[in-house]
């Protein structure tokens, strides 16, 4: 069986700096795969390579066996690769409901239709309402996004990516900056993602990582440093030294 997402000897150089060094990563179908590493380990660069923001210097990226290395950003989404952003990146003027109907419309391939209203399509509005429900956004669904609490905005981040009906979701620090009191909602939302959706989670919060992930990859200096099941990683003395040691 092919992997959901795979990189083969992926590398990215910025001049003399090697941001991503020979990364071969395999994310299995339905996995909850966490990517951790100290600051500057190359996690963000890797996300940018996976989503097509940056072009790799070497190597290739495969989504369900298909080589997507040379494919554009929007086209990767259509193929089933969606992402969230570490820093909220939303449509400030839209309400969550509008954001989601627009996203669903785009996924259904009617994004270039100009002769019919987006609103008033029951199948789309029903799905958007369901998403608001799933992601605890019902009570703010009709408010402009910019007026929403930070935690709700984090939830909308995930809801948008999920509205793309991805096969693989890249979650870039979904709980970043969320106060303790609101993080439970985020954890719930992540736990509620259907098992057939593959998740690659980039996260600093070890609590979230060990609770959520069934496999962990540790990156250091742009390269894969260690890989394995959570308890394996937790016991690995090398990992403790270079990474967990910093926090502990």
């Amino acid at each position, binding site marked *: 069986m092919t992997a959901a997402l795979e990189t083969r000897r992926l590398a990215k150089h910025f001049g003399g700096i090697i941001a991503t060094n020979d990364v071969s990563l395999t994310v299995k179908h339905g996995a909850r795969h966490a990517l951790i590493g100290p600051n500057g380990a190359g996690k963000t660069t890797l996300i940018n390579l996976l989503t097509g923001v940056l072009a790799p210097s070497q190597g290739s990226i495969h989504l369900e066996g298909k080589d997507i290395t040379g494919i554009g950003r929007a086209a990767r989404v259509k193929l089933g690769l969606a992402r969230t952003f570490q820093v909220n990146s939303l449509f400030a*003027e839209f309400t969550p409901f509008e954001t989601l109907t627009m996203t669903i419309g785009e996924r259904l391939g009617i994004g270039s239709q*100009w002769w019919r209203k987006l609103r008033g399509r029951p199948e789309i*509005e029903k799905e958007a309402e369901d998403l608001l429900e799933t992601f605890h956004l019902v*009570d703010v669904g*009709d408010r402009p996004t910019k007026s929403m609490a930070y935690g709700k905005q984090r939830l909308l981040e995930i809801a*948008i990516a999920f509205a793309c009906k991805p096969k693989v979701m890249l979650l870039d620090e979904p709980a970043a900056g969320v106060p303790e009191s609101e993080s439970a909602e985020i954890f719930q939302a992540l736990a509620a993602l259907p098992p057939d959706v593959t998740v690659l989670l980039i996260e600093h919060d070890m609590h979230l990582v060990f609770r959520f992930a069934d496999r962990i990859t540790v990156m250091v200096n742009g390269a894969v440093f260690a890989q394995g099941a959570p308890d394996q990683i937790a016991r690995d003395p090398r990992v403790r030294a270079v990474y967990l040691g910093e926090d502990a």
Partner: protein
Amino acid sequence: MISFLRHGIATASESAKRHRWFYEALFWAAIVLAALLFPSQHLLMIEISIIALFALSLDLLLGYAGVVSLGHAAFFGFGAYLAGLLALHGIVREPVLAMLLTGLISGLIGLAASTLVLRGSDLTKIMVTLGLALVFYEIANRLTWLTGGADGMTGIEIAPLLGLFEFDFFGHIGLAYCLVVLFLLFIVARCVVDSPFGWSIKAIRDNPTRASAIGVPTHRRLMAMFALSAAYAGIAGALLTQTTSFVSLSVLHFERSADVLLMLLLGGTGYLYGGLVGAVIFKLLHSWIASLTPEYWQFWIGAFLVAIVLLRRASIRSALASIGERFRPAGHAQGRAR
């Protein structure tokens, strides 16, 4: 509790929607009424409706796609000259058909131009649009054999509208023609901005990075919107030629690009009526101030604009947004029941 909230939102937005329709009907009725009440002013009203359409075309680009253009006269002027050539050489005699063809070709020119404009930062876009308009101006100036150069294109005869209605000296037919075109194109514009395409354009304006991250092909969509805007501008130019039977270099002048931007800023961007309201305000201010101080009317228009912007917080963008908010009866509270 939630269902109660929903219900409240739904009823509020339904009444807002009814109100919106009411105000909109009032707006267009007022225009028709003005046309009936002041038959001696039809030539002025033609002028206003043409620049209103031109401002509407810029609103599609600036207000919805967030692309600032300082050279929108390029497409207006292109349309004006093309309509002139079509009539002058008897290529397409019937005005409506000629107008539609002009719109189509202006749109294609816009599509080609968009590949140059839609790159780099806002400043780059402004400079490229400005440069394009200057290039168009100079081309029209040099190709004397085609455009008449600085003397303008003369001897244009416009055939009767739909083969039935002869354009008259008082502008009665001309005004009816321009208002019908303005109204229909307004309806189309409304349709476009409410459509999935229109929403994706607004999404790109708000956050292009996120838009592409949900699968919106941002560059293609912006190109399409640019082309549409250029088509509208070209049609406005064609209307000017057809109602005046004359084309001068002023259709491509920088002042025309600047004025239309000014009008749109006066009226507010991003709710479609801004260009229409702005054109009326601009023209009325123009004639009022010009009657007081004939030489310095632009000074006062400029001072007025500066005052608006400064009074409405620092940035032009938010100034426009808050002005637009006032004129937009339904506002952001357009609930999902719509």
